[in-house]
């Protein structure tokens, strides 16, 4: 019997090793599925310690498979069954289950002998009978294992931007928790302090308010994680662009230094530039001589405002950078770079158009960033937005004030894609004289800041497209035929105008259809851009246009189910613009 048991133990060991190998490989494959899933999800949703969790899941699956296999490991008895089933004579199990008295009987001895022979035979054929890939498709599982290891390895190695976001979220949460704790301590200290009851209550109230704000921020920080991530991405992109630009400049500089001829060219160009500057200054001086005293005052005022605006902008941006740094939304490095970029911009002797362009770009970035960070810190966002808006406003004013461009194009090519809320400002069509050379080129984006471009000049055909400010200083005479395309603006022309004729669209296109106005609007975003479906129509008398407009509005009102008070408003509006 001992011999039989020895054979069986050997067989069982072989079986268990094979099973453990298969369990390990299956564990690797099966564990890789949830791990890969997690790592893929972590590339879309920030999950803190995603790699560690994935590795733990993977390992856990492997261990589970191994444990299950170990729990079901083969014993000598099951090895006997295996031998009996495969050899088909059931001697081993019979021998093992024989009572002792029967083992000594002749029949028993015969069975034991038979069983020992069977077990020995099986052991001799063990490698053929229990190959290491027995019971599982080794090729398939090995291929799957290789594949999963490659996938998981790639997911581990490839950097995941969401990890940084998740880390920052975690830091923010811990910071909030620390602040909460500190506030709580402070609150306790205030409660225990010997203060007047009124002061104490005030202090406690403000502390409670702070705690509540922190609690809100905690919730918001989670919901605005994506916005934060967008902001970070934009910052990174900015950094890359800046690096690329610096690199190009360096290359250019190197090339110029290397090439003597290029140096000469550079010198020639610089000389030409100086000459151009002189001639430009001369032109400006001549233009200034032609200005009236009022115009000169206005120009001086604008110049002062520009300076003030630049100073304010520098101040606000400095604050914003500090705020960003202190809020932890930006890393120190990012903050420094941003500050450096701003400083460079402000300190450089850029031309007005360059300043305008760079300022616009920067303002846009700041605006986006402030939107993204809106959920994180409202104050910061406001400051950034304000800074951006102020810069834009100043830039636009600068644009107006610098209407000394020699360009005398009568055609206007600016575009107004802002959305104004002022009344239509078309008075620049009025008569009047002036050195209408204003050529504001500002691409304003702010509300109601449509950039006027080129007011009519001289020839009386000012095709002012821009409504409002652009023509502020120019105001050429002419019959005022410019058709306003802009949606109004805030600035009024300095010369009076009158309604003579208006241009009405020939066709109306568009796809929207009236719907129920269910109440007052509550926020939303202002969208801009796109192509207007309006095409140039014909000119007609204002009263005729008014009648058509009114009847069309009445038809529309009858069709729609607008509330009565809204209909009254429409009616009032038409009464207000009724021709005399």
């Amino acid at each position, binding site marked *: 019997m001992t011999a039989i048991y020895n054979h069986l133990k050997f067989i069982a060991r072989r079986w268990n090793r094979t099973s453990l190998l298969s369990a390990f490989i299956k564990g690797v494959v099966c564990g890789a599925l949830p791990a890969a899933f997690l790592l893929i999800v972590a590339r879309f949703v920030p999950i803190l310690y995603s790699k560690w969790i994935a590795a733990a899941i993977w390992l856990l699956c492997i261990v589970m498979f191994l444990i299950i296999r170990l729990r079901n490991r083969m014993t000598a008895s099951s090895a006997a069954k295996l031998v009996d089933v495969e050899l*088909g004579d059931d001697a081993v*199990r019979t021998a093992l*289950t024989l009572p002792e008295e029967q083992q000594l009987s*002749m029949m028993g001895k015969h069975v034991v002998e*038979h069983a020992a022979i069977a077990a020995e035979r099986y052991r001799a054929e063990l490698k053929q009978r229990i190959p290491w890939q027995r019971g599982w498709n080794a090729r398939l599982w090995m291929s799957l294992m290789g594949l999963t290891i490659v996938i998981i390895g790639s997911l581990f190695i490839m950097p995941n931007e969401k990890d940084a976001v998740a880390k920052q979220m975690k830091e923010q949460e811990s910071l909030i928790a620390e602040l909460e704790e500190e506030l709580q301590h402070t609150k306790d200290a205030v409660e225990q302090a010997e203060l007047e009851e009124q002061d104490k209550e005030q202090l406690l109230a403000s502390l409670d308010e702070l705690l509540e704000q922190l609690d809100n921020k905690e919730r918001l920080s989670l919901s605005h994680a994506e916005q934060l991530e967008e902001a970070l991405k934009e910052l990174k992109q900015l950094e890359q662009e800046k690096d690329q630009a610096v690199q190009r400049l360096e290359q250019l500089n190197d090339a110029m230094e290397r090439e003597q001829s290029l140096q000469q060219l550079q010198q020639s160009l610089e000389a030409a530039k100086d000459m151009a500057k002189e001639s430009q200054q001369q032109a400006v001086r001549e233009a200034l001589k032609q200005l009236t005293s009022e115009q000169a005052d206005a120009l001086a005022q604008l110049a002062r405002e520009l300076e003030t605006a630049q100073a304010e902008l520098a101040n606000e941006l400095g604050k914003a950078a500090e705020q960003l740094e202190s809020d932890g939304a930006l890393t120190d490095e990012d903050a420094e770079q941003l500050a450096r970029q701003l400083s460079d911009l402000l300190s450089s002797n850029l031309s007005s158009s360059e300043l305008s362009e760079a300022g616009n770009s920067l303002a846009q970035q700041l605006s986006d960033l402030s939107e993204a960070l809106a959920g994180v810190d409202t104050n910061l966002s406001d400051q950034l937005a304000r800074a951006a808006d102020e810069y834009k406003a100043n830039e636009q004013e600068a644009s107006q004030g610098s209407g000394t461009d020699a360009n005398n194009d009568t055609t206007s090519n600016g575009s107004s894609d802002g959305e104004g809320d002022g009344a239509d400002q078309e008075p620049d069509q009025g008569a009047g004289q002036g050195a209408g050379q204003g050529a504001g080129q500002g691409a304003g984006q702010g509300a109601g800041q449509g950039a006027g471009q080129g007011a009519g000049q001289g020839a009386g055909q000012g095709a002012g497209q821009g409504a409002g400010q652009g023509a502020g200083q120019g105001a050429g005479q002419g019959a005022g035929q410019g058709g306003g395309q802009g949606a109004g603006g805030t600035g009024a022309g300095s010369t009076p105008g009158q309604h003579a004729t208006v241009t009405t669209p020939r066709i109306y296109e568009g796809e929207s259809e009236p719907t129920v106005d269910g109440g007052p609007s509550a926020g939303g975003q202002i969208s801009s851009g796109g192509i207007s479906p309006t095409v140039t129509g014909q000119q007609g008398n204002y009263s005729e246009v008014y009648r058509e407009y009114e009847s069309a509005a009445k038809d529309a009102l009858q069709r729609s189910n607008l509330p009565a008070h809204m209909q009254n408003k429409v009616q009032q509006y038409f009464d207000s613009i009724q021709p005399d």
Partner: protein
Amino acid sequence: MEHTLQMEDAKHMIAELKQEVAKVIVGQEQVVEQLLWCMIAGGHALLEGIPGLGKTMLVRTVSDAMELEFSRIQFTPDLMPADITGTMLLDLSSHTQRFSKGPIFGNIVLADEINRATPKTQSALLEAMQEGTVTAGGESYTLPRPFFVLATQNPIEQEGTYPLPEAQLDRFLIKIGIQFPTRDELKEIVKRTTGVKHESARPVIDGKKLEALQQLAKQVLCSEDMLELAVSFVMRTHPHEQDAPEQIKQYVRYGAGPRALQALIAISRVRALTLGRAHVSWGDITYAAKPVLRHRLGLSYEALAQGIAADTLIEQIERTLEQQRAKV
């Protein structure tokens, strides 16, 4: 090593018996084998086959090879029980009654076309088959040992027949189906039977040796596992058994009884002995299952109408148990 030698002797004797029978009976190795196992297991056999397949000759040849007393009863509808068991006769010389033994008093009794006799006459065999005794005139007479009833019946000619009742069928250890011979076997049959020279079986063993073989077969070991499998086999013939295959539930009215299990193990043991083993294996059980169980399954009318054979259902049980056994 006495037993080992005996086992070797047993193996040798059985092989010799088969060889002697094969001298007369062409082919039908399986039938001969099963008949011998049945006799070594001490049971009665029911041979079923169309007329002319050598059923009677087979039984006669076996009895010749075993040097046992052979008697034959041709069952007819007018056969009376006393015609089988014997009757009390008045001895005029001594003016006493004496029992005149019937043909049942033999070692090997061939009950030819047993289903042609009335149930009353068929029942006369019950006591003899089960107890090995015959009761007549209030007195029991012991039948000679060893005692075997080898009955035959024709499966296709059912007119004027009385199908054996279940109780009677259960007394038969196995039911052997005799298949039609192959072309070569037919040729050989013609050669052997139409010539001048006729082969006959010489006695290989006698009754005592046969009884010794029977005793040896009973000593063959059967492990708990094998017993468990045999029990499962029998239990799964019952349509109400939870583990029974779907076909059994659908086509079987009633399953095999305890005698089936006894028969299954007994035949398995003999088979193991025949193969020189001292223990029962799964192979023995599956081999014994069909002859042991096929006449013990009460098939439903649906099965009869669809031509579902009992052997098919037994194979189904075997497959399910094989799957269960193969799980390591």
